[in-house]
């Protein structure tokens, strides 16, 4: 069985949004939507689950502050508690204000960088990755919705022609 998909191409984000809502209402499964810029509310219209990236960032931040605390405690208090300019190095809490800038920066550093790396991994982005856009115009001024075909090619084509698409193509996907 061939793996056919419809590529419905639009040239306006408002029309695209309407088309997405109609497609969802008609219970056609949207495989993917390609847009040149973020379309506000598109994820909601498509019914995509909210991202959990912020939760990841919070956890990474917790790891960061733990790392900062552990590092300063080990170096400054446990390993070699020198008297440096009269700063009390008897226990961590006594000298804590001096460590706060480091703890803060470690928190931000871990939260930011690990979250970005998580984002790259989850969205499969890396240098030399082969671009996946099905139509070069989608990076400039066209919007493309990809919908799978299940032996209902004619019906789908006429459906998408009615949603204001400037072009409807049936593509054989391998």
């Amino acid at each position, binding site marked *: 069985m061939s793996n056919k998909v419809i590529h419905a191409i639009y040239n306006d984000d408002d029309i695209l949004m309407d088309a997405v809502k109609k497609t969802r209402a008609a219970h056609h499964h949207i495989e993917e939507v390609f847009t040149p810029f973020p379309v506000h509310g598109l994820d909601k219209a498509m019914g995509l689950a909210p991202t959990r990236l*912020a939760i990841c960032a*919070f956890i990474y931040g917790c790891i960061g502050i733990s790392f900062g605390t552990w590092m300063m405690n080990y170096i400054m208090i446990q390993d070699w508690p020198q008297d440096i300019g*009269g700063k*009390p190095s*008897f226990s961590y809490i*006594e000298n804590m*204000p*001096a460590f*706060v800038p480091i703890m803060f920066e470690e928190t931000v550093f871990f939260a930011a960088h690990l979250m970005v790396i998580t984002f790259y991994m989850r969205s499969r982005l890396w240098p030399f990755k082969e671009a996946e856009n099905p139509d070069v115009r989608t990076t400039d001024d066209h919007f493309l919705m990809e919908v799978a075909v299940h032996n209902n090619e004619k019906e789908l084509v006429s459906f998408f022609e009615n949603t204001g698409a400037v072009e409807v193509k049936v593509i054989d996907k391998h």
Partner: protein
Amino acid sequence: MYTFSSKLKTFSLVLMVVGLLGIGYGFLSAPKNSQDVEALLAADSHGEHHGAAAATEEHAQAVETPAAEAPATTAVSQDTAKVEVAKEITAEETAVKDTAVAAAAVEPAQAVAEAQVATSEHNVDAHAEHEEHVNHVLHQLQNKPWSALYVACIFFMLVSLGVLAFYAIQQVAQSGWSPVLFRVMQGITAYLPVGSVIFFIILVLSGLHFNHLFVWLGEGVTTVGHENYDKIIANKSGYLNFPFWIIRAAIFLVGWNLYRYFSRKNCLAQDEATDDSYYKKNFKMSAGFLVFFIVTESIMSWDWIMSIDPHWFSTLFGWYVFASFIVSAVTTICLVSLYLKSRGYLEHVNTSHIHDLAKFMFGFSVFWTYLWFSQFMLIWYADIPEEVTYFVTRIQVYNLPFFGAVVMNFVFPLLILINTDFKRISWVLIMAGTVILLGHYIDFFNMIMPGTVGDQWFIGVPEISSVLFFFGLFIYVVFTALTKAPLLPKRNPFIEESKHFHY
């Protein structure tokens, strides 16, 4: 139009009556003269002079106070009073060089040796020393009801001022989300004139020597040769003198109130206008007010809060005070809006508006912490005696309120308000808002009390009653003002955008 619910009105009146009774009780129960203090001290002394540990602790405190401040600050118990003066000369050098911990370890041994020398040498002066100590405690205890009143009064007034500043910022920024909340903000700022008058009266009474809140207002402080002469304060008397100080206060209060009055007037006139001229007038006036505000806010914080400790100074203090009351102000807007919304009066306010306020609560809480820590850490790190006494007193005598404020104003809101979903849930915001408001009351308590009542502090009847009284007055004035105008501005250029705001 909003109608003031009779239940809330009764509630606010009850708060005021209970508060007034408590304030009166506070003034009546304050000691009148040194005999009363003698009796109090005698009752306390049993527990006070138990062992070397207590003496050591008090000693460490006295040593860390620089010589110039010593007569004015930190209570010293009767028996150890003389020992300390003698020790100060020898111990000061070591104590300043070493850390407090190191010094504390050495002291018990020294204390015994020197106590013997000191008692024999100085028992002639012991009586005079004792007199001075009793007098010191008397002043602190007499300050207690005044300070309680002062803290609550300035706190509620500054919350109202913070709302005014936030409102002016929203006008100037031409924000599209907040116009539906403008009338709520104007309602809250209606407390400003009332609060200003009461506050100004307290300032005048301080100037007329009804209390000892401001040391530099004391008699003979600037007179050379007088027993109260204080060179440091005398050098600052070009700025810290009663006429200049009270005139500044009058200018600030009048300036803020004028902006509030005309801004509200123009806003109401804009409802009936046919063009946007009143809106433009308000825009320009708000921009002017913000310039005036930031200058006067800074000076206000030196005059009304920092001058409580006239030997101490900090450059970012004005911002720190600002951060403290702006976060309380945004929290108050949020709580009042949630209340009005729950009664069905704010049709166009949705969870997105509340979410925005919650983000401001979160952001300003972190901003406050940033300034709190910057002030504390810089002084702690450099450890310059004339600056560090401020925090030594607070950490040793106000340990729980000092660090408790950081937990309430930073840790709690940080963990609660970081979650997007929580920022839309009313009960979460009411809980977080209550903690933030209480935390910032304690913050003001920490700023003012150590300089006025020192180690005699307690959150008892006078403190709680003062808060209740001003809270009741605040509710009464604010909700009365809310009944005076429709809760939705009609012809604000951004009102349509604001009604449909969603995030």
